[in-house]
């Protein structure tokens, strides 16, 4: 019985570490993507403004 409980705890820990790792990596990736989008968006906006001025 004790062994089953230990295995359940071990499985739960593996799942939880994997989930936390997955979310952390995804969030870092999404943060970088957001900043990249911001860069492209502003660049395009500035190009439009310059076109209008020209």
């Amino acid at each position, binding site marked *: 019985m004790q062994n089953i409980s230990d295995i359940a705890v071990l499985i739960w820990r593996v799942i*939880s570490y994997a989930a936390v790792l997955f979310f952390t990596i995804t969030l870092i990736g999404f943060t970088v993507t957001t900043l990249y*989008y911001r860069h492209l*968006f502003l660049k395009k906006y500035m190009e439009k403004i310059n076109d209008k001025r020209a």
Partner: protein
Amino acid sequence: MTSVLSVIYAFTIFSLWISTLMTLIQQYGAFKGHFKNLREDIDIDALYHENLPPVTIMVPAHNEEKVIIGTCLKIMKLNYPKDKIELIVVNDASTDTSKDLLAKFQLRYPDFDMTVINTTKEDGGKGKSQALEQAIAISKYDILGVYDADAAPEQNALLLLVHKLLEDASHGAAFGRNKCRNRDHNLLTKFITLETITTQKIEHIADWQLHQLGKIPGTNYIIKKSALEEAGGFTHEALTEDTDLSFKLYRLGYKIAYEVRSEAYQQEPETLKVFHKQRKRWAKGNIDVLIRNLKYFFKGPSQLRQSLFSLFVTYFWFIIVIFLSDVFFILQLRIIIHNAIFTNQLPNLFNFDEHQINLLVISWAILFFTFILYINFALVTEIGQSTVNNYLVSVLSYFTYAQLFFIVSLIGIFSYIFDRIFKRESKWYKTERFD
């Protein structure tokens, strides 16, 4: 007791992960949609051509003297062939000066194809659906557009919607986004602005990009008259007639297309009282639609099932989890305060080991960061919105506005249950306008 608490603990953690995962999937869909829009520029001149179909625009109005003329002017100035727009304003049992103002407007612009239906308390004033039906009855054209009386559409709003509707034969309706025109009025309107930007720039885009799924909002949308008739028109008793209509269209296999570049302005509630009434109606209306469509959960079209799942998650699953976590938080807080003041020490609610506490804190931190990133990605897609001030408001909104939304939704759920038990009739509440 320990095993029950362990199950609740696992359920809470699991729910946090699921909600984080769903948020990240939505954000992925939004990335796809926004990067695509960034690559493909829309040529407005190419969209404007002689073969555009005529459209009947309907504006239901009840005591709207503060905004109605401004909206009519905006509709008249839409970038759309003037001979292909018919405007019908239903001045629904108004007791203010709307009738006179509209009559003057018609006199001033006699060439503009505009009809005003004035109703009294006897033959009108029964709500938005009935007002729209009166307009539909006399409408000339096969495409119907709806704008709320406070919704001032941008010049190209209608043109973009028509283009989207005609893009595919399966599109039964098309809708655009609504921007908050009183965003800087106070902190509440700032919170609502962040919420609407996030909903429209992330959720709606992702739903359309990933699942070809859209939901008709109350305003800035067009619909094929044939699709509306096939769906049996509006449901009179529905508190959220737009959501109800969307579900009826899904059942018929129609898609509701989203065009994020079609924009209109609308006023948001400026006081907590008005906000509470509006959101309570939304919550009750959405729960009602969910319950009436439950039978399609496993056998309906995919759009219908996805929308039902989304409503279920919002109004039942996550609400229960937030409710449970708030209850535990308050109970534990009471124990901590008690133990700090009195000598007789109370036992802690949970006896977590270090791993469990770490996991809870880290899971919460991940969810919190996801929430902030979610809002701030929506903000970077708008000119002038990605500011330090808005970033701070987004952080603050997690602890204040998001909790307020939860409380109002909970009140809506209980109110709906009481309505059903005591057979009370739900009242349609029109959102108040501000100067």
